[in-house]
């Protein structure tokens, strides 16, 4: 086993700066650093550590501990090196009798109010206070409580006579993942500052003054769990002592090795250090050199990894002839032979195109590449699709049409140079929390925010962040609002004509300008339809067009509509109109849902295109793959997920290999999905758990977690990040090996021995990956595609000198109302979304302590709508649409407008998708999750459907004891 060598990971004390070089001497050694750098960091750059407690390089200097004092020639006194910026010619002494004495005195005071239980302390071996006591040579503490004066410390619960110490506070263990032990606190403020500066939640504060100063989460009656804390872990990371400590470290002890890898939750793609003892994972710590997260994390990536060894995990292959039979555990050989014979048999009976695959947007690029290769090269058809169908397929189509390629144009660092941000149909503080923290940091520094969303999401107004404009549109009217924004920009002459003339197709712009200028697209004309105040919309358009660097971030609230692709094109139009393309701080930025949904699209998971977004109809592209694969590729596009289900009901699609995806829970119109799955004769589910789809499966192949394999994930910034094998797969095989075994059982003859060989095949066949190999990733940490001869170290910004397709295309975006309309039977509009603590269908996060924050899906309803229906807070309500009905509990809130209700889809016993319909995006069949006409009524509990579903699921999950 060879771990990745972690680059210089020292704490430099204060953040890096950029600026003109400044040369100074530290203890006589010359060092050159950027202007604005602290003396402390300059010393660290020179290899000299200055003792410190309140400073850490993720936070701005604070200057409270007085341990980092130094002497500077020609200056009086002993300045704190963390808050003193360097100056040319400065001569610094980090050690002298004077500063040694001062530091020892400071440490003596700290230790006088700190317990000396170091040997049994959870931070033993990882405690900066302990290190600093050693570094300054502290040997004894002279301060003692005055005789008969009572205790004057914070760490002893009782004095020797048994009288309670009023200064002592018990440990707060309310958070499931970490504890707060006030007796160990040195009031360095690092946790408070991390919560403010890094996370941007402002949940923590210092209460009291002087000796009474205490870290506090919210009010006096709050604990960490009931406070605003979002459990991102930034405070735990910043704490120099055991005051804030991971429970896993308390239980297991300090880790002894670490491996850098990539989080398997959302599309931000944070880099983490997996810290271990042997192959036991002790904790996940955000990696400060990770270019997506820059050392930050959220509650999911940081703490919610316990599912990896949850008791529900299935570790042995299982088969059955019919889905009403219990599962039989069998050998890998038997399961694969069974699956291969079934699939080949179906093809013989029903034709080559009667089977297909769903690739996983949670698995690695290499695994996804192999699954689509399985269908194209072994099955001999193009029936491959992926979860992106139901999330960002309209991004693929819309941006492809406008720009020539379908991915975000920027890196996440770009937000640091943005002046005006539009967030449309996305809820980053819940869905993409680490990006949200970076965005909020920029907003606190003065950037302006426009939120376009039916709900008052947290970004609209939260601590020290307030949107300049919130346009609370009616669900389903995105195109009308985006077109009205363009109307204002064009009719008021606010567009960037120079950019449009040089970078875009001028003729198409003329058509487009004539279209949007029509008075029927004015904010006033569409106000009744969209529900958005026209003056507010005009002001937002003016701000975006004239406020400096403008960037648009969007999510599934844009794509998951009948006109999802049209809205994406409208967003591209807005960026081009205002010249906000091709430089830092601007661009069009889809916030991707799953960890590798970008990668799964890049890897040819869609039924019409081979890896690198090249249509299967192109003979030259097919030939490139045929030459390496030695098989012929079908030139016809295959079935998309909804089409597969329709074809299954029709009887022409009979077999499915579904890797790491739970279509029964995540896809719309659950009853239709169930009917499609039930009509298939061979469903192979390859997953960690018996998910909902497995209720209809005939073969179950156990999957491996992201901790158990090598590979790469590609995040929303097109960044290819390494995933590293931290421990061996519990099920025996990484997922790419399982796919290879299945392919070989069908006669493929593949012989990959490491995922790097698959990446080499990707590079050899896919121009945008031509320069990518594992050696480059080791060297660079990560690269953003395109990575090729022209861009050997990747491409942080796209479309810099010209669009991929040449000239940018303006596309006319006529609003077309969805056919999903409210009426007397279904008078409310349901829209769906996510919550911070849960991820997608919840298969992972529901199997962690994250359930303390969200143990069930709730229905958000406006108090007016609730009152007219006799619904009170916490009541069971029946939610019904033309597709189906379910029940869940109500939460009354004015975050939703009257007429709109909202819920999440994280729990299978609610099954929000039994409500959603089969309407979909016109271009891509991406389902219209975001608009469903519904009715609400009081209810006594679960519907018949829910009870039948639960019973069927339970029957279907029976496993026979293994044969001896």
């Amino acid at each position, binding site marked *: 086993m060879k771990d990745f060598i972690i680059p210089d990971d020292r704490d430099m004390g204060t953040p890096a700066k950029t600026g003109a070089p400044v040369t100074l001497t530290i203890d006589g050694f010359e060092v050159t650093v950027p202007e604005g750098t602290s003396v402390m960091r300059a010393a660290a750059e020179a290899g000299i550590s200055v003792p410190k407690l309140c400073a850490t390089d993720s936070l701005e200097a604070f200057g409270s501990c007085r341990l980092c004092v130094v002497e500077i020639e020609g200056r009086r006194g002993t300045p704190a090196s963390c808050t003193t910026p360097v100056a040319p010619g400065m001569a610094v002494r980090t050690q002298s009798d004077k500063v040694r004495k001062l530091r020892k005195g400071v440490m003596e005071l700290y230790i006088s109010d700190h317990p000396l239980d170091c040997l049994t302390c959870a931070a033993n071996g990882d405690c900066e206070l302990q290190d600093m006591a050693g570094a300054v040579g502290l040997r004894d503490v002279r301060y003692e409580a005055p005789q008969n004066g009572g205790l004057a410390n914070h760490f002893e619960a009782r004095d020797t006579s048994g009288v309670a110490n009023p200064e002592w506070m018990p440990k707060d263990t309310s958070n499931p993942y970490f504890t707060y032990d006030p007796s160990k606190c040195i009031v360095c403020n690092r946790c408070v500052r991390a919560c403010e500066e890094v996370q941007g939640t402002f949940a923590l504060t210092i209460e009291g003054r002087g000796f009474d100063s205490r870290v506090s989460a919210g009010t006096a009656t709050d604990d960490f769990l009931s406070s605003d804390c979002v459990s991102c872990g930034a405070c735990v990371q910043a704490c120099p002592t055991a005051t804030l400590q991971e429970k896993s470290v308390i239980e297991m002890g300090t880790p002894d090795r670490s491996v850098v890898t990539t989080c398997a939750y959302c599309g931000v793609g944070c880099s983490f250090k997996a810290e271990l003892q042997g192959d036991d994972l002790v904790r996940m710590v955000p990696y400060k050199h990770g270019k997506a997260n820059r050392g930050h994390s959220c509650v999911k990536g940081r703490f919610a990894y316990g599912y990896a060894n949850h008791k529900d995990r299935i570790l042995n292959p299982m088969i059955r002839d019919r889905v009403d039979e219990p599962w039989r555990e069998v050998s890998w050989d038997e399961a694969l032979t069974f699956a291969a014979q079934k699939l080949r048999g179906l093809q013989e009976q029903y034709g080559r195109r009667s089977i297909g695959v769903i690739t996983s947007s949670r698995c690695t690029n290499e695994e996804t590449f192999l699954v689509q290769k399985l269908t194209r090269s072994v099955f001999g058809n193009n029936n491959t699709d992926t979860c992106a169908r139901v999330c960002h397929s309209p991004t693929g189509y819309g941006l492809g049409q406008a720009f020539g390629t379908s991915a975000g144009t920027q890196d996440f660092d770009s937000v640091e140079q943005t002046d005006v941000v539009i967030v449309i149909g996305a809820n980053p503080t819940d869905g993409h929390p680490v990006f949200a923290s970076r965005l909020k940091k920029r907003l606190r520094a003065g950037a302006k925010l426009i939120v376009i969303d039916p709900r008052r999401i947290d970004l609209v107004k939260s601590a020290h962040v307030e949107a300049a404009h919130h346009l609370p549109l009616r669900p389903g009217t995105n195109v009308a609002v985006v077109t009205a924004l363009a109307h204002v920009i064009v009719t008021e002459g606010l567009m960037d004509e120079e950019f449009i003339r040089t970078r875009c197709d001028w003729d198409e712009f003329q058509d487009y300008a004539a279209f949007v200028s029509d008075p029927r697209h004015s904010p006033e004309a569409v106000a009744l339809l969209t529900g958005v105040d026209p003056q507010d919309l005009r002001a937002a358009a003016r701000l975006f067009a004239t406020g400096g660097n403008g960037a648009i971030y969007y999510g599934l609230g844009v794509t998951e509509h009948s006109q999802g692709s049209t809205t994406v094109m409208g967003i591209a139009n807005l960026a081009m109109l205002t010249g906000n393309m091709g430089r830092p701080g601007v661009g069009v930025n889809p916030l991707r849902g799953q960890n590798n949904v970008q990668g799964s699209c890049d890897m040819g998971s869609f039924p019409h295109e081979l890896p690198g977004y090249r249509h299967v109809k192109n003979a030259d592209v097919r030939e490139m793959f045929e030459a390496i694969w030695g098989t012929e590729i079908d030139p016809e*596009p295959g079935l998309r997920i909804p089409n597969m289900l329709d074809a299954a009901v029709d009887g022409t699609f009979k077999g499915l290999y579904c890797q790491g995806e739970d279509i029964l829970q995540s896809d719309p119109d659950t009853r239709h999905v169930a009917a499609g799955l039930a009509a298939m004769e061979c469903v192979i589910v390859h997953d960690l758990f018996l998910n909902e789809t497995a209720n209809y499966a005939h073969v179950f192949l156990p999957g491996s977690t992201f901790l158990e394999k090598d590979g790469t994930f590609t995040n929303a910034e097109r960044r290819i990040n390494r995933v590293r094998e931290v421990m061996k797969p519990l099920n025996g095989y990484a997922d790419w090996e399982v796919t290879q075994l299945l392919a070989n059982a069908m006669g493929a003859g593949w012989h990959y021995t490491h995922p790097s060989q698959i990446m080499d095949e990707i590079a050899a066949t896919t121009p945008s990956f031509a320069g990518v190999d594992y050696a480059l990733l080791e060297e660079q940490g990560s690269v953003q595609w395109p990575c090729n001869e022209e861009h050997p170290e990747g491409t942080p910004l796209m479309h810099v000198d010209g669009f991929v397709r040449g000239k940018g295309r303006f*596309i006319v975006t006529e609003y077309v109302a969805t056919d999903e309309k409210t009426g007397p039977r279904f008078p409310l509009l349901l829209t769906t979304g996510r919550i911070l603590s849960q991820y997608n269908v919840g298969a992972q996060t529901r199997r962690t302590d994250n359930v303390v924050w969200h143990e069930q899906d709730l229905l958000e309803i406006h108090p007016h709508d609730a009152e007219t229906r006799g619904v009170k807070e916490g009541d069971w309500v029946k939610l019904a649409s033309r597709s189906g009905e379910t029940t869940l509990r109500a939460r009354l809130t004015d975050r939703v407008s009257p007429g709109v209700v909202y819920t999440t889809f994280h729990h299978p016993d609610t099954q929000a998708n039994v409500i959603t319909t089969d309407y979909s995006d016109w*271009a891509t069949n991406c389902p219209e999750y975001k608009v469903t006409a519904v009715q609400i009524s009081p209810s006594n509990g679960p519907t018949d459907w829910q009870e039948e579903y639960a019973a069927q699921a339970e029957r279907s999950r029976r496993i026979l004891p293994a044969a001896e």
Partner: protein
Amino acid sequence: MSPEKMVHMANQIATFFKTQPGDDQAEKVATHLQDFWDPRMRSQLRDYVAQGGEGLDDIAVRAARLIA
């Protein structure tokens, strides 16, 4: 797929391309269908048009006649 669903999907595509400038909307719809619909879906659409194409947009009907 149910005829109603197919008609709905085809009409959605036709509705988008009808809003685009130019006079080749039927060709654009045909290209879209050829690029994104699998052969069995296209043949279902062709057959449906051959049997009268009830409920289909004119542009969708013309496109269906252009696809293979």
